[in-house]
């Protein structure tokens, strides 16, 4: 930044001998340069207020107001400059207004930037979050009021102010104010480069803007009047000065975009990596679950084999019936494991096929001399906690019905009855005691308790058992 400032000063110093060379009068220079300055400084002012929202330093607030002031003065400059907008006349004010608009602009800019640099260099105070809105509204209001007051003076009573130009040449008063502003800018640049330095890059860039402004003022004064080389180069240098902070913000934007892109790439890589890790974990969990289910089924088969071997010598009818019931329960538990293993999530499965297979296995295990059994089930989802007691309950109720000699038709149904409710129905065309006082009654009662079910038995034209069940939400 020091090199850039020095280069700017050097170019200006080299231009000094030629500054008074007169160039053709091109009034369009004023609207062109002023509109560029207006856009750049107004945008910079907005960005500075936005940044102030994050940083909340007084120096930034003063700087934001400075650029708001400078952009307004650029407008005033165009409106009061002869021939700038309309040939042979000015839009507002008097002929004396032109010089004062320029003078107020450069001296105001110099004083305000100097104040901002002083605050940044020597004050660490911040505006509190609570006072933020008051600070912004108050500072903008004050700036607008000052601009309005100065504009009124410049436009309405410039003849009461000291004379700045005689013919097309600056007066001593004009030079006093201009060189005063120049000195203030130089002092500000010195504070920026020597005190603030790299602590705050924004203010380092501001020193470049102030250098450009100072060089513009210097060469403009040396030029001695309008439409000289110094006056024209001065306009160009002001435009550069107005654009410096805007360029700084553009640079920040580009840098932030790069950082965002890098962060996004890193995040995407992390997501891919994490997804792969999670997939591996899920896959590992599935392998373990499959292994567990497989072993459970193997053990059930061993248990069933043991019971079959042990029961080979049993002759008592009741004892054989009890062993057969055990075999049915083992088949029911095995069926739950098989359906869980076959499901996608290894946690839940549909009741439809399960109920049909369970019924088939019980009927098949009892041989050919059994009643005609029909099965019908809605698409109710079961999870492990629900499926095991449900399977055992259905087994008990169905084997109870099948044990009746006079049952010809048995119907097993599972119907959905609301969002989390289902009704299991086991009905037969035979009547008679089914549960009372038997071990089956204790098993059914315990399973109903576990399932939170409510059972009703109706005995009209046969037996109809209905069990109202709460199906868990997870299922």
């Amino acid at each position, binding site marked *: 930044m020091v090199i850039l400032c020095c280069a700017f000063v050097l170019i200006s110093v080299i231009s000094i001998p030629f500054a008074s060379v007169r160039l053709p009068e091109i009034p369009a220079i004023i609207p062109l340069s002023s509109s560029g300055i207006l856009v750049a400084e107004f945008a910079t002012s907005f960005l500075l207020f936005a940044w102030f929202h994050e940083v909340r330093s007084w120096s930034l607030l003063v700087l934001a107001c400075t650029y708001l002031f400078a952009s307004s003065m650029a407008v005033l400059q165009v409106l009061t400059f002869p021939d700038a907008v309309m040939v042979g006349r000015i839009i507002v004010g008097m002929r004396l207004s032109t010089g004062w608009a320029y003078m107020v602009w450069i001296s105001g800019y110099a004083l305000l930037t100097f104040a901002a640099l002083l605050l940044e260099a020597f004050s660490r105070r911040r505006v509190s979050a609570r006072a933020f809105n008051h600070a912004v509204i108050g500072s903008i209001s004050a700036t607008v009021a000052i601009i309005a007051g100065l504009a009124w003076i410049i436009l309405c009573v410039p003849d009461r102010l000291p004379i700045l130009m005689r013919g097309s040449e600056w007066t001593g008063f004009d030079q006093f104010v201009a060189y005063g502003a120049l000195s203030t800018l130089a002092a500000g640049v010195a504070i920026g480069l020597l005190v603030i330095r790299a602590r705050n890059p924004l203010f380092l860039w501001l020193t470049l803007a102030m250098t450009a402004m100072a060089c513009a003022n210097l060469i403009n004064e040396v030029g001695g009047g309008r439409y000289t080389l110094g006056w024209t180069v001065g306009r160009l240098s002001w435009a550069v000065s107005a654009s410096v902070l805007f360029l700084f913000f553009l640079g920040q934007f580009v840098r932030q975009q790069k950082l965002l892109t890098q962060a996004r790439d890193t995040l995407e890589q992390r997501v891919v990596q994490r997804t792969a890790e999670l997939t591996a974990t899920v896959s590992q969990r599935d392998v373990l679950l*499959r292994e567990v*289910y*497989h*072993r*459970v*089924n*193997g053990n*059930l*088969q*061993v*248990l*069933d*084999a*043991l019971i*079959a*071997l042990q029961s*080979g010598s049993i002759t008592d009818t009741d004892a054989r019936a009890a062993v057969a019931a055990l075999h049915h329960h*083992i*088949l029911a538990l*095995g069926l739950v*494991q*098989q*359906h869980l*293993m*076959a499901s996608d999530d290894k946690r839940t499965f549909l009741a439809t096929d399960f109920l049909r297979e369970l019924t088939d*296995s019980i009927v*098949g*295990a009892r*041989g050919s001399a059994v009643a005609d059994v029909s099965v019908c089930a809605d698409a109710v989802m079961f999870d492990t906690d629900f499926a095991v007691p449900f399977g055992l309950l259905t087994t008990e109720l169905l084997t109870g019905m099948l044990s009746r000699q006079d049952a010809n038709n048995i119907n097993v149904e599972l119907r959905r009855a609301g969002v989390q409710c289902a009704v299991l129905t086991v009905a037969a065309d035979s009547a008679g005691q089914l549960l009372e006082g038997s071990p089956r009654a204790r098993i059914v009662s315990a399973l109903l308790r576990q399932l939170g079910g409510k059972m009703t038995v109706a005995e009209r034209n046969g037996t109809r058992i209905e069990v109202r069940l709460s199906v868990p939400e997870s299922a």
Partner: protein
Amino acid sequence: MTDCILIVDDEALIVEVLSAMIEDMGYAVCASAATANEAVALAMQHAPRLILMDVRLKGVPDGIAVAEDIRRTVGSRVIFITGSREPDTVERIKRYAPVAVLFKPVRLDQLQSAVRQAMS
């Protein structure tokens, strides 16, 4: 090819019960094997008409691969018995086109029906 059945399972108790069931049906069990190598050797030796093959055996290869080997060399028919219903395994078994697939714990009526079909 002899009219006997080879049982391949690494659980001795299951082999025992399956043997009893088959003998009750009136068929002969020529041998039983607990590993893949044993199964291949006994199949070559006895050339059984039917093999009851557990899918998961001790070590590698598994029952499906062994059955494929035996089919090529001996030509026995196979009933698979498995504790797994996971789609991959079932798909592999189906590709082999066995007489039947029985899931553990095995139902007697299914076993009888499958054995009769294979031996007829």
